[in-house]
């Protein structure tokens, strides 16, 4: 024994449970007795959930109209016309029919396909400080090449709103006429954007005066592709003018996929035939067609839709639940057979000896 061992203070560990790794622990031991019921419970629970989801989805009324190649009165497509004269606008009309009358609030969307709002360079091509009203600042370099407009060889002014997203803002306009009454369907252009976006991410420059909207945007230029400057968006609509224009805000929220839809308007319920929803009958859509998509094989659609508790019409989730539920049931049944044929009892499972093969 080393000398002095007795003189040293005892090194004996205190032996608390946490140090001895003896804290109570729980481990699920997956046996046939616990796993099989789980499979059936999940299977049985998922199928009704799926049915419920399908029910919600099917309850949604939905109408889509592809107007990409709509024709003008002279038989030419608007797509061709605006391709010939970029920046011009073209008017075309399409008749459509809604067979059943819809109940509930009706939303009007425009849908684009093959349009990559999620391209990396596109997504970051914006200046959030400018969008908050700081229009005097030098636009963020991410906005390039949509940051400045050269007015002559030496002088350029910042573009407001700068960047590729703003520059490519969807600018077709729709007019829907209810043929049965011959009246234009009244569409609301507010309540389209998220409150948070409107409050936190977008704001007009301080001193913005709706009566003299251009004042605070002095020495700025409109985006190259735009036909009117930002302060003329939502003209005469209180709270919807300039940088807080809801069409603009909706566009600025990048879509996740190249095929997407965006809220265009809400059908006003403050009009005859549309008080409780959407009336069945014939309609005429008049499109002011300015947004080119055919060059890159894109399409443009008008969508009318009600919503359910879970938003728009999409049966996928319901079907997925039902399929997964069924898979669980089938697997459960297969496992039961496997268990009956090859299974071991829990007792057998836990009595492991050195001879047990593993």
């Amino acid at each position, binding site marked *: *024994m*080393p000398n002095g061992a007795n003189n040293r203070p005892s090194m004996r*560990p205190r032996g608390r449970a946490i140090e001895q790794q003896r804290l109570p622990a729980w*481990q699920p*031991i997956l046996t046939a007795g616990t796993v099989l019921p789980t499979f059936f419970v999940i299977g049985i629970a998922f199928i009704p959930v799926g049915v419920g989801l399908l029910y919600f989805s099917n309850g949604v009324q939905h109408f889509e109209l592809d107007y990409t190649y709509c024709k003008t009165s002279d038989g030419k497509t608007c797509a061709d016309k605006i391709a010939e004269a970029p920046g011009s606008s073209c008017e075309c009309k399409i008749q459509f029919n809604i067979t059943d009358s819809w109940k509930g609030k009706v939303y009007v969307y425009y849908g684009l396909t093959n349009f*990559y709002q999620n391209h990396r360079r596109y997504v970051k091509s914006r200046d959030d400080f400018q969008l908050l009203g700081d229009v005097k600042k030098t636009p963020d370099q991410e906005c390039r090449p949509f940051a400045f407009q050269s007015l002559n060889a030496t002088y350029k002014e910042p573009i407001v709103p700068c960047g590729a997203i703003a520059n490519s803002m969807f600018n077709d306009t729709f007019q829907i006429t209810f043929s049965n009454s011959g009246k234009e369907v009244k569409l609301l252009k507010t309540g389209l954007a998220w409150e948070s976006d409107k409050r936190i991410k977008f704001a007009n420059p301080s001193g913005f005066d709706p009566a003299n909207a251009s004042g605070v945007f002095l020495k700025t230029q409109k985006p190259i592709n735009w036909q009117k400057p930002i302060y003329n968006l939502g003209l005469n609509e209180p709270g919807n003018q300039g940088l807080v224009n809801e069409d603009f805000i909706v566009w600025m929220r990048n879509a*996740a996929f190249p095929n997407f839809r965006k809220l265009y308007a809400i059908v006003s319920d403050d009009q005859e035939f549309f008080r409780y929803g959407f009336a069945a009958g014939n309609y005429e859509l008049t499109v002011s067609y300015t947004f080119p998509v055919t*060059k890159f*094989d894109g399409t443009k659609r008008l969508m009318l839709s009600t919503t359910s508790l879970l938003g728009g019409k*999409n049966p996928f989730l319901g079907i997925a639940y039902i399929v997964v539920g069924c898979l669980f049931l089938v697997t459960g049944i297969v496992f039961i057979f496997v268990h009956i044929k090859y299974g071991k009892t829990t007792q057998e499972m836990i009595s492991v000896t050195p001879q047990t093969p593993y």
Partner: protein
Amino acid sequence: MNVVGRYLGNVGDWIQTRLLRDIRQEEDGTSSAPPDPQAAHADLRVVFVNRPQPEKYTSNRVSTAKYNLISFLPLFLFEQFRRYSNCFFLFIALLQQIPDVSPTGRYTTLMPLLFILFISAIKEIIEDIRRHAADRRVNVQEVEVLKGYHWQWIRWSKLKVGDMVRVRNDSLFPADLVLLSSSEPNAMAYVETSNLDGETNLKVRQGLAHTSKLLEPKDLNRFVCTVECESPNRHLYEFVGTLRELGKPAHSLGPQQMLLRGAKLRNTMWVFGIVIYTGHDTKLMKNSSFPPLKRSTVDKVTNGQILWLFFLLIVICVISAVASEIWSASYLSSAWYLRFDDIVISNFGFNLLTFIILYNNLIPISLQVTIEVVRLIQATMINYDVEMYHEESNMCAMARTSNLNEELGQVKYILSDKTGTLTKNVMEYKKCSVAGNVYHVDDDALSKRLKEGGGSDAILLKEFMTLLAVCHTVIPEIDSLGEIKYQAASPEIPDARYDEWKQRMEEARLSMHMREQKVADAAELIEKDLVLLGATGIEDKLQDQVPETIAAFLLANIHVWILTGDKQETAINIAYSCKLIDPTMALLIVNEDSLDATRETLLKHVHEFGEHLKRENHCALVIDGRTLKYALSHDMRTDFLDLCVSCRAVVCCRVSPIQKAEVVDLLVQGTNAVTLAVGDGANDVAMIQRAHVGVGVSGQEGMQAVCNSDYAVAQFRFLRKLLFVHGNWCYHRMCKLILYSFYKNICLYVIELWYAIWSAWSGQTLFERWCIGLYNVLFTAAPPLALGLFDRVSTAETMLKYPVLYKMSQESQFFNFRIFWLWVINALAHSIVLFWLPAWAMAHDVMWPNGKEGGYLMLGNSVYTYVVVTLIQYFYQEQSGVDLAFGQSPVR
């Protein structure tokens, strides 16, 4: 009474010293003649006393610190960037600085990397400040040096080779000194060497008779001589030198005259000495080398997989960049809204870099930090284990490194020392035999016979007892309470042959066998006319539970090899008594004295095994050191190794420390198996350092083995819990931690690949920037830590009860190439489900009754949330030790 045995045990101390010198000279191939000044050896140091030194020697200032102010930054960065992962992340961080390349911002990699480096730097600085402070405390100590005719106090750091110093009682020696004279008669001095070797007994040193009269400064001042000695080395117990005075015969100097730095003067008013070795040349400093850096098998596999994963990453990036190229070529020219008039958008090289940044987190940046934190805590748990605390020696287990915790779960070969490791190394006097009569320790026949007197046997007995009482190294020391303490040297093991010799003592056949040995001529001269008075019988018992522990190891498929300096019979006996071999086993004893004979015998045995070669057979191999020398020669190594692994047990006897290490090397190089070397003495150090895991038994032989070990335990039996419980747990935990860390990162970041399909291969991230940044450090930080710290594959009791459970970790069943890639595939599968289900479910954009659409972050945040939820769920599934994904059933 048992002290008597020890007395005798130490009679031969000086013989041993001589022996050692001979052996070393034999090994070195040098002659035993004292060093010849004319033959200017390169490894010879000549110190001129009272004359200027022609050579410049190392300063006596010591520095054990790793860094100084200037060297810190380069050295630290060098250390850090030797790790692949840090280099990789630095590369990523640099890439992100290129404008328009990074999809995730400029600082998302730099910040975490700097944070990790910062934490590491703080740890290093704190450790180094402590070392600096300790160094300073040492260097500013003062000692008296002879200047002319006066003693003058100077700092240790100013001390030079050739200085004469006076060291007073209870002070430390400032350098390695040659003892000239002391306050005691005959230049005797007592030293305590516990700092050096952990032995707390006092040792006697004695100056040469020739110098013992140098008691006054004027004598010393006039004493002009040279000291020839070996160049600095780390052998604590060896020293060969010659003191030459002009015109006088030379005197040889040995360890008896050495006062080593680190030792302390005791029971002696003062000593005079000549400084021989200073600073980092001293034997103390030579011994404090940094142990070799060991890495665990899991670590190596991980590093290998990281390289593979990096390869996978590059493949994914190339695929993405090519796809981006194709997409751009077919789409971009017509996409007016994407007309960015620079070339970056369609440059293949830039796109590749973008994707490398986008996917770089496939390799988890936080893994290294998590692993280090977990290992540190695991090591603490080992230290805290109350079941590995040894009451008698007041020692707990000690994890000296934490890098190898999981390696403890994979041990396949245990190479064990015998004395002090398997046995207690407490030599207990049992009986003695004098003049044909045997006297047991328990009866009083001896004292009776002594009292009675008369007869030749009584005279012999008296002579015998006198000898025992005189020839020893026990030093009585009067302590503060006035009680006499006997300070006996416990047996030292600096060389294997000493084992042999000690065993002879135990067998009480010293004087008969000594002649067979190559003893120094002088010793032989003395021993020629010895008369055998009698012999003592000494017993060294097995430690507690050694047979049970070894039996458990064998059940766990761990091979136990005994490597001892002891003689063959003893080794075999011990192997029997600790149940390593049993009487039904065939013993293959290989004792040959030539290369050819060894080869012949080995080949014969190899042929006898036939197809059973390299499988475990019910037999044991016994080989002695001499034969081992031949068997380890180049052309026989493979055959010898094959033979060894074909046997259930291997016993190597009469092996030197270097041979022990060579056997470890043989195993390490020849097999993929993890080796664990366990020993308690200085002769086990080489083996402990060479094995994958070195365990020191903090026994009777000082701290040398412990100081060089990775783990220290007080008793051999604690290895059982260390391996079966801590090793197994740590292995499972570390495997799960690593696999899970890779899994979670792959699962999240491969989703970026799926999203690239829909985002024009532009490198757009699906997730919000902060979600990405906080993924490893916040949202999924806890599960890997919990797995690494708390996961219990089964209870300690179960694992101790069923040693066969050890095979799971031993055979790398939970972490190997296959498992790793199964997890990767699993992560890929999960990522597919986790991306496509939400993508389809949200394809219609409008998720709320208010008719508004969510945008890409709605999808991104949803997917992110589902990933985190799935990971947590997967954690709950994994922590059970049940791996549904791969069909491995739980064993408990």
